[in-house]
């Protein structure tokens, strides 16, 4: 059974009309993201901001000790982690924590949303590897990769809420087709709302219709995270040859392990 006309109309208004209420970032994370982008950011300030939220410290420590980040030595303190990984990486980790806690959590659809989060995290990690291969910091690539599908759980939640309001039952088969069309746009809106760079928001919006380097990069990472090796047009735009892609795919085990531990 398809969506009812009433829900369809209201959902469309939310999905395309910009009326969807977007979650805000937890305060500590918002401050930390802001600080990480400032030229006068230092270890003490960053550590202070993160420490304000005790649960945040625990989350960060969990992430920094996954294979994608941890080196030979185990990171035991927050200061040590920030020092070793640098502000950019810490900022990315905070974004992982925030998105997982605030968005990738939809009651009744836990399995699906966890899978989406796992895919997004893998995309972020692949995107970073591609950027590094291209000798770029990879910060924007990470953010755009992580949030490229974040519109899906957002729209899913909106759909659930609408059904609850109208006292209707949401048929699971209606979920994906409904959220597919607008997810990129909504994801871009969330990135704007969270104050991420405009290029990141744009890449999220265009990840299914890439038109610049970053959006092609995210599209390529998206494919690699789905385990697809046929990366045709994106690879050509990014000047990535099969041997370059093979080099990226070598990181698959590390990425898979990290995703497994966090998702």
């Amino acid at each position, binding site marked *: 059974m398809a969506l009812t006309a009433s829900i369809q109309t209201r959902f469309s208004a939310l999905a395309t009309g910009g009326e969807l209420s977007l979650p805000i970032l937890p305060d500590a994370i918002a401050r930390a993201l802001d600080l990480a*982008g400032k030229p006068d950011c230092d*270890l003490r300030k960053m550590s202070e901001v993160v420490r304000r939220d005790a649960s945040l410290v625990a989350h960060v420590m969990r992430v920094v000790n996954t294979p994608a980040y941890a080196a030979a030595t185990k990171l035991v303190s927050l200061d040590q982690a920030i020092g*070793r990984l640098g502000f950019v990486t810490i900022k990315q980790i905070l974004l992982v924590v925030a998105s997982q806690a605030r968005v990738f959590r939809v009651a009744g659809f836990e399995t699906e949303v966890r899978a989406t989060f796992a895919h997004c995290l893998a995309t972020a990690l692949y995107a970073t590897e591609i950027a590094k291969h291209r000798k*770029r910091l990879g910060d924007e690539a990470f953010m755009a990769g992580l949030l490229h599908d974040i519109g899906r759980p957002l729209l899913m939640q909106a759909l659930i809420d609408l059904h609850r309001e109208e006292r209707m039952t949401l048929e699971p088969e209606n979920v994906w087709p409904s959220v597919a069309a607008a997810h990129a746009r909504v994801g871009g809106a969330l990135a704007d709302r969270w104050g991420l760079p405009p290029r990141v928001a744009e890449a999220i919006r265009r990840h299914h219709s890439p038109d610049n380097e970053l959006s092609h990069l995210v599209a390529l990472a998206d494919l690699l995270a789905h385990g697809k090796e046929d990366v045709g047009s994106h690879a*050509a735009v990014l000047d990535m040859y099969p041997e370059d892609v093979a080099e990226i795919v070598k990181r698959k085990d590390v990425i898979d392990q990290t995703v497994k531990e966090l998702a």
Partner: protein
Amino acid sequence: MKFDMLVIGSGPAGQKAAIQAAKAGASVLVVEQVARPGGACVHRGTIPSKTLRETAVALGLVRRRSAGAFDLKLPDDLKLASLMTRLDEVVAAHQKFIGEQLERNGVERWHGRARFVTPNLIDIRGTDGNASRVAAKFVVIATGSQPRNPDDVPIDHERVLDSDSILSMAYLPQSLVVIGSGVIATEYACTFSALGVQVTMIDRSPRPLAFLDEELSNEVKAAFERDGGTYLGGRTAKVIETEGGTVFTTLDDGRVIRSEKLLYCLGRVACLAGLNLDAAGITPDARGLLAVDQHLRTSVPNIYAVGDVIGPPSLAATAMEQGRRAACHALGLPLSSSSQLVPAGVYSIPEVASVGMTEAQVREKYGHAIVGRARFEELARGQISAIEHGLLKLVCDPEERVLGVQVVCEGATELVHVGQVAIIAGWRADAFVENIFNFPTLAEAYRVAAFDVCKQRAKRAA
């Protein structure tokens, strides 16, 4: 497919080789591994860095020329990209020009990576992995170079950067350590210093740009230090570590320098991986460079190598000339001797340029050198333009024939060409005295330097 000439790489060296060969009627294929032509020159090095430098120089000029009337302070959180807003246009325009020039000359262009099968057969693979085999009578290797990244230098492109990633920094840092004292290191050190960044250069060499005439490189060092930069010569960086937003550089004398960012600019390596040079019968030398004879031929007679892959001076203008000469030699075209004269230009602040012989070289060859000097602060134009320091050296043999010119001054890279023409024409220093130059101009420095030569003659006679 068959071509008279296959050129691998579309940077300055490859472009000129291809165009020269095509103009002579040869069928030419240029292979470039990235979609856009131009090489590192257009995309990572020469042109982007000069665009940023232009902003830095303009800021300095406004400050000096307004004599403090404008207090131009850059905001602390200034985004680097906002200082290079013209970059995309500059790069796009240059790239378009290169593409059109190749096309106009009938040069075929493929996007792919080349791999030797034999000295005459090359596989060209696209990003899709499919290869086409091409036969070429001559091959020109012009694949360029990339920064050397030693294992013990933690280049993360965030805190420790190389010349390929330095311009991707989001913000102008407060402080920057530059390891190295070559052209790239010096250009970036000067540019960032002029933008108000606290820059420390560290290198074994006692002065930057040590390959230049000593007087010139001392001028550059002095200018850099006047601008607030620190040059630590005779030292090497032993350990480079990062913690948080800080880079710690430990020198061989035990000193530790803290900085927000570090630019590692110690050496470049030739881009030869993937070419399968073994199949061509070529072995790179111990430094990973390709050895060539005076005609730019490798050990395999039909294969030439030009540009950065053969080593210093690694300047775009030199690379272009090498490309042209290689193509001429391959096709049996005549070359005049004057093309041996290749000027060098370095976009430090101020610029440095040199053509012909240096004072030391003339002295060694002729036993004695006559050098006329002009200081730019003594010229009307220099004063008007608020050029506080600068030097032009007119280097002559004992007969006062002009054999070399070295200039350090904003605009030196243009100014040097006047001297170049004089050398080609075989002028004596007198010619600059006997001919009229516009007033007030920087070119007047040539007259001042020539008068200096005359003065020395008078002194010798007396």
